[in-house]
């Protein structure tokens, strides 16, 4: 259930994470600081106790009656009440005590022990730090204990703690605000980009986003968006051109039908003349029907609603079949069709679709080769590719039209191909047929003149 979280802006989420990480780091830092400071303070206290212990040891003397006393004028030693000095006999009796404050619990130190012993004792709710050790005063073994209150140190430590605890949220808050502002600055170009991109609609696809700095992330993102817009633009252009061309191609026969009809009814004519006029009109209608059928099929193809019925087909047989059906056209022009067919090139295709592609390409070769020419159709297999090639002796295709020749309604020679009854869609259909099989169709110039159309289809293992 992180929907509300996901719904917030990147900026807020960024700051959220930032603050969280910062808080964790600050807590760790504060805790480490406090521990170090506390250790240092207690260490200092212990060092001081040690110093005072040594000083007291030097100043303590034993009187003749067995009491302990401080050597003369140094009795109070400036420290006053803050330090308590106690001397204990080996048997555990307190022999001497100086300094203010309440009595401390007896030192539990055995006189025989020779080591310094630090400990914290509590008396009347106050914590005292004490250092005790056996010493020999005037030949007597006693235990000297020096104690100081920990309260001051604790006071200081709690002040440090307050500073740390209060400072932490303040620092996080300040960092958060700073981060928010910085993130805002960093993300501003993205907001800007979004606004700019919204501006670019289907009607304004020629526009591009400005690239502020092509090397940073925003620059790369902008370049990517520009690339997408560019591809969209060319698809839109193609679509627009296609729509315009289609309308134009349909208008031409419509105009012819209309004009023939108008001319026919303008005055009384003979039955033969009417028959002639109606025949012409029907021819145009027929042409239009073919065109509309083809356009519908192409749009089905574009929409991806044509399901291929793939089955294994022998490409060589398919090519021979096409040659057989078109050979009369070549014979009319005294052309020879030579088959260079490798047998056994079997691939899984929709036979009818591929046959149509080969038919259109071969028809093209026949149409554009001169009388008496030789047209070669070849079927080969190279590794994972099966190819059907047709070589003609036509006028060839200028370099700049190599790609466009497969575009819808593109005609190299407007008048000629229209007379031949072409719709201008034959190669476009072939291209669609081949590409829907994930193949490729291309045209190359032949060294001796003429063109070679090459259909390449992937041989799939299935």
């Amino acid at each position, binding site marked *: 259930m992180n929907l509300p979280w996901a719904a917030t802006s990147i900026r807020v989420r960024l700051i959220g994470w930032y603050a969280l990480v910062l808080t964790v780091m600050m807590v760790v830092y504060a805790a480490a600081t406090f521990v170090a400071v506390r250790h240092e303070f207690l260490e200092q206290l212990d060092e001081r106790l040690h110093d005072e212990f040594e000083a007291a040891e030097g100043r303590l003397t034993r009187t003749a009656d067995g009491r302990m006393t401080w050597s003369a004028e140094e009795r109070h030693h400036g420290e006053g009440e803050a330090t308590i000095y106690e001397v204990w006999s080996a048997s555990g009796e307190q022999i001497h005590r100086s300094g203010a404050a309440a009595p401390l619990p007896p030192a539990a130190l055995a006189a025989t022990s020779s080591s310094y012993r630090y400990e914290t004792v509590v008396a009347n709710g106050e914590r005292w730090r004490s250092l005790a050790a056996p010493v020999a005063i005037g030949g007597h073994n006693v235990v000297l204990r020096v104690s100081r209150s920990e309260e001051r140190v604790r006071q200081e430590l709690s002040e440090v703690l307050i500073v740390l605890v209060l400072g932490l949220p303040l620092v996080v808050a300040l960092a958060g605000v700073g981060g928010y502002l910085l993130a805002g600055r960093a993300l501003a170009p993205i907001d800007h980009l979004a606004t700019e991109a919204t501006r670019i609609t289907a009607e304004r696809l020629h526009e591009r986003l400005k690239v502020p700095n092509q090397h940073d992330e925003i620059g790369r993102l902008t370049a990517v968006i520009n690339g997408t817009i560019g591809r969209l633009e060319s698809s839109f252009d193609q679509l627009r051109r296609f729509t315009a061309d289609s309308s134009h191609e349909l208008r031409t026969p419509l105009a012819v039908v209309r004009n023939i009809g108008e001319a026919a009814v303008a005055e009384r004519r003979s039955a033969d003349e009417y028959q002639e006029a109606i025949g012409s009109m*029907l021819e145009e209608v027929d042409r239009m029907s073919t065109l509309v059928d083809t356009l519908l099929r192409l749009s089905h193809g574009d929409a991806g609603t044509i399901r291929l019925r793939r089955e294994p087909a022998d490409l060589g047989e398919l090519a021979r079949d096409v040659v057989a059906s078109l050979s009369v*056209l070549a014979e009319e022009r005294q052309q020879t069709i030579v088959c260079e067919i490798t047998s056994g090139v079997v691939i899984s295709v929709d036979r009818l679709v591929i046959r149509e592609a080969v038919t259109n390409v071969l028809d093209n070769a026949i149409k554009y080769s001169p009388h008496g020419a030789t047209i070669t159709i070849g079927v080969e297999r190279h590794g994972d590719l099966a190819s059907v090639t047709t070589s003609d002796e036509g006028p060839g295709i200028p370099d700049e039209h190599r790609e466009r020749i497969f575009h819808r309604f593109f005609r190299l020679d407007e008048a000629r191909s229209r007379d031949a009854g072409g719709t201008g869609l034959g190669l476009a259909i072939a291209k669609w047929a081949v590409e829907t099989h994930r193949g490729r169709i291309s045209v190359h110039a032949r060294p001796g003149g003429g063109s070679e159309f090459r259909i390449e289809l992937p041989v799939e293992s299935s």
Partner: protein
Amino acid sequence: MHPVRILVVEDERTLAQVLESALRADGYDVVRAPTGEDGFFRATAEAFDLVLLDLMLPGRNGLEILQALRQRQVDTPVLILTARDGIDDRVHGLDVGADDYLVKPFALPELLARIRALLRRGRPAEIGQLKAADLELDMMARRVTRGGRHVDLTTREFELLAYLLRHQGHVVSREMLAHDVWKEPRRATPIDNVIDVQVARLRRKVDAEGRLRLIHTVRGVGFVLREGEP
């Protein structure tokens, strides 16, 4: 023999009129029904030899009517006319009990040929000899003579001539030839050109010098084999 009666269920008036006049010209008796309800009522009440049924009708659509007819055991042959060129539609139409279908816009010769085929159904196909004037074609021997003299034809030319002879006196469209003679699933420009060339060649061989012309081109429509002018 009573004249063949055909019910035309078509809401579009112009098309219905054209169909009626074309069918009457071919000697059929025609009854028109402008709506689905009317069509259904007439088809169940009267006897028809064939029903031409438009799929897209106001009120009840053609498929529903067809279904209802078949449920009532009315087994008059039904030819569906549809503007929708979807394979699913066709299959569905045939599943529901249509006998044939045509996609609009269709050529009249094709419609007439389909109607003839549906009406002929059940009768044995005429095989053997096909004749027109002094042209004779022997299906079994695959032999053609004109005025007693042998005419040498290729396989395709023979099939084309046989088809024209079978539809003697009726115009056949390029669509029909592409589909029935060339077995092409789809008519396309290259095939149109092939058909034109083949017909021209056939004509050269069959209607040789000095003979009565039998094979005629009907401009904008197709071809017809008939004695005398078209």
